[in-house]
């Protein structure tokens, strides 16, 4: 049970000549919140897309719970208990909020040919979806059309959907981006409660204060390579990291 939940070894993704991710390796332990940081273009979202199956790696391996997952399709990876949010929110706009969550809860049925013909309009399913909405604070908007929600609520909806799918592991892609102060605090509390339930979280975040405060450990990428890994305090003091963010002159000031 001490084996890491996610093991990334020598992961590379090349787009023609561009090495978006170049030989990155790190592990994520069960129950931890790991932050993936780095300046723009560092390869964080590409990493996410590799883990969630949107891209196939050019080289390297990804193992989830002991099982190789590199090269699997996104819907198969979702079926393994990995849920994700998107940096640019992707709600099912014409469906209602609760239908968005129900669509995610359907993961229990989609692979089973007889099952897909059973109804999703049962009260048991509704209750399950509502409890997820309560968790993220959207239960009174259940019948609202998702396309009409403001950004903050859409980010929460994405998390509700990801929770429905991710029984073990959550990938949060800049979920704090564009949120107001109170919303950020609420979301931090939510993610902590998710971890308290036993889930593991990998998040990409630009907001340094959130990342430092929320994450147990950090991995910093730059130009597709891993620059540093460790606890927030260690990483914050790491010269290479400071240089990557602030430039050479900046690191002289910061030291």
């Amino acid at each position, binding site marked *: 049970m001490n084996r890491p939940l996610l093991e990334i070894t020598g992961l590379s993704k090349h787009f023609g000549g561009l090495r978006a991710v170049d030989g990155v390796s790190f592990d994520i332990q069960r129950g931890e919140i790991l932050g993936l940081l780095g300046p723009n273009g560092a390869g964080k979202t590409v990493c996410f897309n590799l883990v969630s199956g949107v891209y196939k790696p050019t080289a390297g391996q990804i193992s989830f719970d002991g099982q190789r997952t590199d090269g699997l399709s996104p819907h198969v990876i979702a079926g393994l208990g990995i849920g994700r949010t998107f940096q640019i929110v992707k*709600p099912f706009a014409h469906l209602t909020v609760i239908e968005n969550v129900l*669509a995610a809860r359907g993961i229990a049925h989609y692979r089973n040919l007889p099952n*897909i013909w059973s109804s999703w309009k049962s009260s048991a399913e509704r209750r399950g979806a509502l409890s997820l909405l309560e968790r993220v604070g959207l239960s009174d908007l259940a019948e609202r059309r998702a396309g009409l929600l403001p950004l903050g609520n859409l980010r929460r909806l994405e998390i509700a959907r990801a929770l429905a799918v991710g029984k073990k592991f959550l990938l949060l892609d800049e979920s704090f981006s564009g949120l107001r102060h109170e919303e950020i605090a609420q979301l931090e509390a939510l993610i902590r409660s998710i971890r308290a339930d036993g889930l593991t979280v990998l998040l990409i975040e630009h907001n340094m204060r959130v990342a430092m405060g929320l994450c147990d450990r950090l991995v910093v990428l730059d130009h597709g390579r891993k620059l540093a890994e460790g606890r927030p305090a260690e990483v914050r003091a790491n010269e290479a990291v400071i240089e990557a963010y602030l430039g050479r002159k900046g690191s002289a000031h910061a030291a």
Partner: protein
Amino acid sequence: MSGYLITLGTIIAINGIVACGLNVIVGFAGQISLGHAAFFGIGAYTAALLATKAGLSFWAALPLVIAVSALIGLLLGIPSLRVREDFLAITTIGINFIVEAIFNNFEFFGGALGIGGIPRVELFDLKLRGTEFLVLCLFFLVVVMVVCWWLTRCWAGLACFALREEETAAASVGISPVRFKLLAFVLGTAMAGLGGALYAHFMRFISASDFAFPLSVSLLSMVVVGGMGTLWGPILGACIIGVLPEVFRPLVDYRILFYTMLLLLMIRFQPGGLLGENSAARRVLAKMRPGGTS
């Protein structure tokens, strides 16, 4: 009811069945198909061949007709659904032209002369004609609508809706895009095949030009004008598109022009369809309801 109205009603009912199938593909799953007439034709030719060359009754042939239409839908769907959205429209147009060319050029399908002498449908020794046949078509229309209604309530349908809205997000919640697009496509082509069988036994003579590209355009127009993705949209669309040319008949020479211009205006100003959200019709109805807009 006059014979003319019964004929019109029968054509509308048959078109409604085929349009419902197209609505599953386009409205529920969000996949464009501009070649649906080809599957209508495949159903018609299969029924015609089984009736005239194999001597099967309509009822015995029906499961085969639906199976063949579904199977060919599956075979053509697999490569088609892998291409980018813009390509899909053109690929389905291509399928329509190629299928029509096959029907037109091979002796097995009667070539340019088509297939004639298709017998009427018999039920308990009674040959169905006129009103009775219309009732038969309406019966199948109800069956098809019940299937569509059930689809909206089951996980398969929800998966299709999610896919239509946002394919990447749908995949991230466990929905296999290929599997569910194919499912919608096969259901749609099966329904078209059913309509084709009814058409063959109604007209009793079919030829390739009955299933050409303009019909695919009409069918898509029915779905869009009525309201894509709604349950009653294709039926409403079939009624409107079926009735319009007749309404304009007094205009004699100008009727096709009026019909196409009206289609243009409808698409230009009500692209969501008459039953679609935000349509003028819906807004008027909402104001009429107590409590105002939804």
